[in-house]
């Protein structure tokens, strides 16, 4: 009988990439792979620690599995495992708590466990890029990890401490990874990493890498995931006009107040951010810009917050992830004193979310009547759903094939008040 491994992934696309790669490896080893802990021999929780809420969610997933009677092997990995390793080992003495840099060796660890070898103590050789290209994944798009770690040291961010120093994967490895996943049948690759704009492999920067990716003589499209707006060059903007590159960037803003950005130690100004958006919308007036905004950073005044609110309308964001500032120990911001009360943070967060929803709806309405090519990722209850080039959810009546591209025309938009899908019909 086949062994079964379950996964639960929290947080960023990098975690998703790593889970996908691990899942694919387990399939290759003869395991069944599922997305929960029920009846599994192994349950892997790939955690996140970017906010207190992320820690809570990660712990909740582990506790839920145990409360539901999971008696198999339990593996806790990801950034929370790095950040709170000792606490987790103490609280879950039967779990394997695996650092990020050893995450890629989890399949070997599991095999060793079932072969009744001595319980390994994190001595399996891993490596932050030692993941096989994933044939079997939880996603329709193939995540391509190009980079890990971050040297920016934003004052609020714990990630450099848990992901470590910035390192870049070699160009050859990345191109080979893409060739393989395209041969597996993927139509879209998502370029991912902790801080991809700082990619540098022996002098090849992010734009130069992107150029080599789009020059691959293969049929696929490229999505750039979350990126910092601090090191774009002219070549990057030129490349965004390439037909293989989708017109969408998740461009982290965090705050539109110049003084808050300085206190966050972000490496750009709001004025620079505005100029980038202008250039993007010159390339394509509908270019989808999604973003992250933190509210209630220490010393954020009402006027500072108002600037972030205004930015949501001014920038016409397609989507805003709103985060209440969450104090992370061992960061510079944790030592800042003039903190915003929790109640006020909640109030600002709700206000920003509402403005962001209004902006999203306004942005999406512009697509009615337009055509797009949608990659189908969900088929159920008489409809099919997917994302077009601009990364906006589109629903089409009827059963279509998953992982296929369809030319569609947008007809209208759902009435959902928070995240309305566009409705469309197939066109030739």
């Amino acid at each position: 009988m086949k062994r079964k491994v379950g996964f639960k992934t929290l947080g960023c696309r990098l975690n998703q990439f790593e889970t996908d790669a691990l899942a694919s490896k387990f399939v290759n080893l003869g395991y069944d792979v599922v997305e929960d802990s029920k009846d599994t021999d192994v349950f892997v929780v790939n955690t996140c620690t970017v906010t207190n809420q992320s820690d809570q969610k990660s712990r909740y997933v582990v506790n839920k599995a145990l409360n539901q009677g999971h008696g198999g092997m339990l593996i806790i990995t990801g950034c929370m495992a790095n950040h709170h390793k000792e606490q987790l080992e103490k609280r879950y003495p039967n779990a394997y708590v695996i650092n990020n840099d050893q995450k890629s060796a989890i399949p070997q660890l599991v095999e060793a466990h079932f072969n009744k070898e001595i319980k390994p103590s994190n001595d399996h050789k891993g490596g932050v890029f030692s993941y096989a290209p994933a044939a079997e994944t939880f996603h329709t798009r193939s995540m391509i990890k190009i980079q890990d770690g971050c040297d920016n040291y934003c004052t609020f961010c714990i990630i450099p401490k848990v992901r470590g120093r910035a390192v870049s994967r070699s160009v050859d490895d990345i191109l080979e990874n893409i060739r393989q996943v395209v041969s597996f049948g993927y139509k879209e690759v998502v370029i991912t990493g902790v801080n991809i704009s700082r990619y540098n492999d022996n002098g090849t920067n992010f734009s130069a890498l992107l150029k080599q990716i789009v020059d691959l003589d293969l049929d696929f499209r490229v999505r750039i995931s979350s990126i910092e707006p601090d090191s774009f060059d002219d070549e990057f903007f030129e490349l965004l006009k390439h037909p293989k590159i989708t017109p969408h960037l998740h461009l982290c803003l965090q705050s539109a107040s110049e003084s808050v950005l300085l206190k966050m130690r972000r490496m750009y100004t709001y004025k620079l951010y505005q100029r980038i958006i202008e250039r993007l919308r010159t390339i394509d007036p509908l270019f989808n810009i999604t973003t992250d905004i933190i509210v209630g950073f220490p010393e954020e005044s009402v006027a500072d917050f108002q600037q972030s609110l205004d930015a949501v309308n001014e920038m016409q964001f397609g989507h805003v992830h709103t985060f209440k500032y969450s104090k992370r120990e061992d960061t510079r911001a944790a030592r800042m004193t003039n903190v915003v009360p929790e109640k006020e943070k909640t109030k600002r967060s709700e206000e920003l979310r509402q403005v962001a929803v209004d902006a999203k709806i306004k942005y999406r309405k512009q697509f009615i009547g337009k055509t797009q090519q949608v990659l189908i990722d969900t088929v159920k209850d008489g409809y099919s759903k997917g994302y077009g080039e601009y990364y906006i959810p589109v629903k089409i009546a009827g059963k279509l094939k998953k992982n296929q591209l369809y030319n569609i025309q947008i007809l209208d938009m759902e009435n959902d008040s928070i995240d309305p899908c566009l409705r469309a019909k197939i066109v030739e």
Partner: protein
Amino acid sequence: MERFKKMNKQAIIMSKEVPVANKIKTDLHEILDIRYLTDSTFVLRIEKKELDFEAGQHVCVGPPNGIHTREYSIYSAEQDDCLEILVKEVENGLVSPSLKKLQKGGFVVVEEPVGYFTINKNLPANQKYVFIASGTGISPFHSFVLSKPDLNYTLLHGVKYAEEAYEADAFNKEDYVLCTSQESKGDYNGRVTDYLKTNSFGKDAHYYLCGNCNMIHDVYDILEEQGVSTDNIHAEVYF
């Protein structure tokens, strides 16, 4: 495993081995010398070991027996065989008072250098630079100038009192402007921002700002009024 596509039989090749991870390297470094510049400010000279760096980068430094470190821009030159940092004791601070108690022959914890506040190598050799510092924010500029003696620069240093002109003889006298806000012993009596308002260095210069948030914020506004593009402004905030 319903959600998964049928297994592709194509061989899955493990990616090439890479060094196991990108952990931040930390080591103990011996204190070689301590140079007091004022009652509260001193230069800590420490072993360099294998720590190569680019002028403008910083290191996290802390006492050997503590869990806390703080970021300090490197004060010495790239080619020096030791590392130096400029430390100002912060009242009730967790790190600087401990560092002040250390003596020659003792040790500090040092993390490897990091940061992007560096000279862009793609700029021409005769590029004009304007360095603007407040207080110990002079540190990266000291490293710039000692590392690259041919730099075409003007340095504006904002302090309260002239005694805070830390080792100003490292800079060309004609390229250095000491702005003292609390007394008139400097080259200019007033804040560095006041000096900049009445002395423009042009749109083509590259401006490097290092110091407290308020100074940097105000300088950004002044430079914007002078028509300088933000592409030409580089900032390192001190807290």
